[in-house]
């Protein structure tokens, strides 16, 4: 009886462990080939310019970053692509500088065919541990089906890991019995 339970545990552990590894590998492949990143930076939520905020991490008033505006397919370095609300974002986009910000002219100004950025992409606040993003993650809309797929993936991964762990304890002979909630008085 105990042997049969252990065998079932081994099978359960291997099957669910394999599925967990397989979906995790798929997850990492999708992450590194850029699919998951493109789900995140999917389309523009407002009119403005798509940018890669990593290119101006050290921008300041004294050392502004000058972004060249153009219809690029992929943002490489100091470039900005004009986008309208709902447009698909070009590759390597990490945020949007919206029109309102440019019109205000406090942090970004439009100079001919360039954008002059005078703030870094992320500021560590003087108080506490908090970080404040300037244009990173701003004005972007995620892919709705990407959200559904991500939640489904996490729930399924949890299921696989949970059943794998259950198989592992059975395999080790630590088969857990149901708790007798009402035995001995309640």
């Amino acid at each position: 009886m105990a042997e049969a339970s252990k065998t079932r545990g081994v099978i359960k552990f291997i099957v669910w462990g394999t599925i967990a590894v397989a979906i995790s590998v798929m997850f990492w492949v999708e992450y590194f080939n850029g699919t998951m990143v493109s789900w995140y930076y999917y389309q523009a939520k407002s009119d403005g310019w798509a940018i890669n905020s990593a290119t101006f991490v050290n921008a300041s008033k004294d050392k502004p970053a000058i972004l060249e505006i153009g219809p690029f397919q992929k943002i490489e370095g100091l470039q900005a692509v004009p986008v309208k609300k709902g447009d698909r974002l070009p590759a390597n986009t990490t945020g949007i500088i919206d029109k309102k910000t440019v019109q205000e002219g406090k942090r970004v100004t439009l100079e001919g065919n360039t954008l002059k950025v005078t703030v870094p992409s992320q500021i560590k606040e003087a108080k506490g541990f908090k970080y404040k993003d300037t244009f990173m993650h701003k004005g972007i809309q995620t892919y709705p089906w990407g959200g559904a797929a991500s939640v489904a993936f996490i729930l399924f991964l949890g299921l696989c890991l949970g059943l794998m762990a259950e198989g592992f304890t059975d395999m080790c002979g630590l088969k857990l019995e149901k708790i007798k909630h009402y035995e001995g008085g309640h």
Partner: protein
Amino acid sequence: MFEFIIAGMQAPIFLLVLTGMTVGMVGGFIGVGGGYMVTPALIVFGFPGYMASGIDVMHIAGKSVVATIRHRQLGNIDWILGLTMVGGTMMGVEMGVRILNYTKALGLSGIALLTGSVAIMIGLFLYTQVETHRSQKKINELTKDGKTVGRELSVSTLPVFFQSIALKPIVRCHTARLVISMWVIVIIGIATGVLAGFFGVGGGFIRVPALVYIAGATTHIAVGTDLLEIVVSGGYGALRQYMSGNVDMVAVWFMIIGAMFGAQFGSIATSFVRGPAIRYILSYSLLLATTGAFLRLIYMLTHQQYEFLNFLAVVFTLGEMLFLCLFIMTLVIFSVRHRHGKWVPGWIPSLVATP
């Protein structure tokens, strides 16, 4: 250090896995998501605040599945109770968020919200502490009289009142051995959901005591059933967070791996203890979380002048994770020693389960 492409920053993998593990252990034991612990930790690791809360919610959904599977094996889930309540909870959370937005529009400050949250947590802490202390005393008395004491003992009389409400339809929850009006369960869901959505405190903190003290479920079943609830509400919350652009899935993956180990230990640890032990740890975690919130409240009331208060609140929250894990491990170790007839402190026998 790992470069998180979506979050746009670097953070140590080890700390993410460790955070997942510790919160998984505490969550698996007391049936809470643990968001109040994870978000400050992620901010300390360098994640922006909005990312921290998004990653937290997504990881809670996955972690709860792991813990729910183990609690199912231990017979701690009442599916009828959980699924009846889940609709009410979702409705309540949505109502809570809408009320929050409405009060914000009216100009009600964050200070008022934080005060309300602190007051609710203190109230729950006091009630749980007093009731659990009385239950422990009762267990000691019964043991002295030579009577056998089971897994659960609660001296609260509130469930008797709520179970006597004969508003149809009446639900029969077989695992929890409850015969109760469906409306009582739905209203518990709505009320706990509203509080969770409005005050931003974790639903589990309120739902577990509500299931014990209002519905009359045993603590173990309340924990397991609450985790089932968190799978549904956490999944919904995770979807909303993803749509708002607050989630880096890789950080979630690392935390889930850690949570797998922690949630296993936390869930299995419930089989070593009696109900009052879980309620004690739940009340202590309430107290510690309240202290963190209280420090933040003073920080805000003093117009953010005293930075050390904010720092202390974060340190307190992180220290709490470690303290609760050590407490759970201590209980398990003493339970095993007690089963083998070895010496244990005097307060242990009434809290641990005898085989």
